[in-house]
């Protein structure tokens, strides 16, 4: 889990500063502006990490509620977008852990059940933005990404889907630039290995 209160080295822009001050004063219009500005980033990060449109929509709302409730804790030393990305990643990871726990208990129910029709369902994810001709390959790639270790998965998703720079990813994940470079390098190598194994089988 990423610590939400640790400072970032990147300073906050002037427009962000005004928006944050207005949010701290509880101005509704500022909150509306924030939602308009960040809903695309938040939703797309969520959907790439949790791989379910309904859940992503729900987590997006949770992220904005968290922002609304804890804006007074936000420190001006970090970028607003960095902070929001951090909350988004944390909320998505929380959701995935919850799902894993549910799946585990579901599996236990399944193995103890005598009903032969009750089967475990592992859904395949089709990202709504993927081009039609790439949909099958995108599905295979999403499945391979899901099998990456957590940190590699987050770094790869933020880089590939959100187009964040290495520096921005380092700020969001609160890691050094070199460790992000290393994470992404390992993520790409692992993905290649998994894809080779997939096509070889």
């Amino acid at each position, binding site marked *: 889990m990423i610590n939400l209160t640790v400072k970032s080295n990147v300073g906050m822009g002037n427009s962000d500063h005004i928006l944050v001050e207005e949010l701290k004063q509880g101005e509704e219009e500022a909150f509306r502006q924030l939602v308009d500005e960040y809903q695309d980033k938040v939703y797309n990060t969520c959907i790439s990490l949790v791989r379910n449109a309904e859940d*992503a929509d729900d987590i997006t*709302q949770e992220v904005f509620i968290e922002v609304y409730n804890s804006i007074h804790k936000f420190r001006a030393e970090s970028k607003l977008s960095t902070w929001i990305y951090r909350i988004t990643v944390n909320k998505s990871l929380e959701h995935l852990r919850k799902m894993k726990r549910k799946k585990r208990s579901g599996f236990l129910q399944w193995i103890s059940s005598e009903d032969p029709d009750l089967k475990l369902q592992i859904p395949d994810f089709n990202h709504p933005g993927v*081009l039609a001709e790439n949909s099958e*390959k995108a599905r295979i*790639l999403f499945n391979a990404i899901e099998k990456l270790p957590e940190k590699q998965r987050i770094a790869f998703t933020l880089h590939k889907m959100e187009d964040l720079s290495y520096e921005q990813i380092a700020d969001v994940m609160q890691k050094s630039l070199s460790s992000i470079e290393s994470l992404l390098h390992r993520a*790409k190598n692992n993905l290649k290995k998994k894809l080779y194994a997939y096509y070889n089988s």
Partner: protein
Amino acid sequence: MKKIDKHIEEQVEKTLQAFDGMERAQPKPFLYTRLQARLENKAGKVIRGGILSPAFQRLALIMVMMIVVFNIYTAARFFINPGSAETIPSSEQLFVEEYYPSTPTLYNISQVNTNP
């Protein structure tokens, strides 16, 4: 063999590029309105959550049931065996006990000893 390897390599490279040209996904419409409703709902829950929470209701029910059981038990004891119930002495009895005690007190004993 080399041909197969090359084919797989191509597939892997193409798969890694599957996200290229991808459009952004859109959340369901009226996100802000749904968000507002959820915030209002949460605020209401915080206010009502204290005394109307299921945990509080369960605790209150258990306490009421304990009081009812205790009352029934006490009443049953009283009606089944009324003689055994403790009786509160009347004010007259208290007066008699104070001024004409059935057992000698220190005051009575000293009076007895001073008489020649």
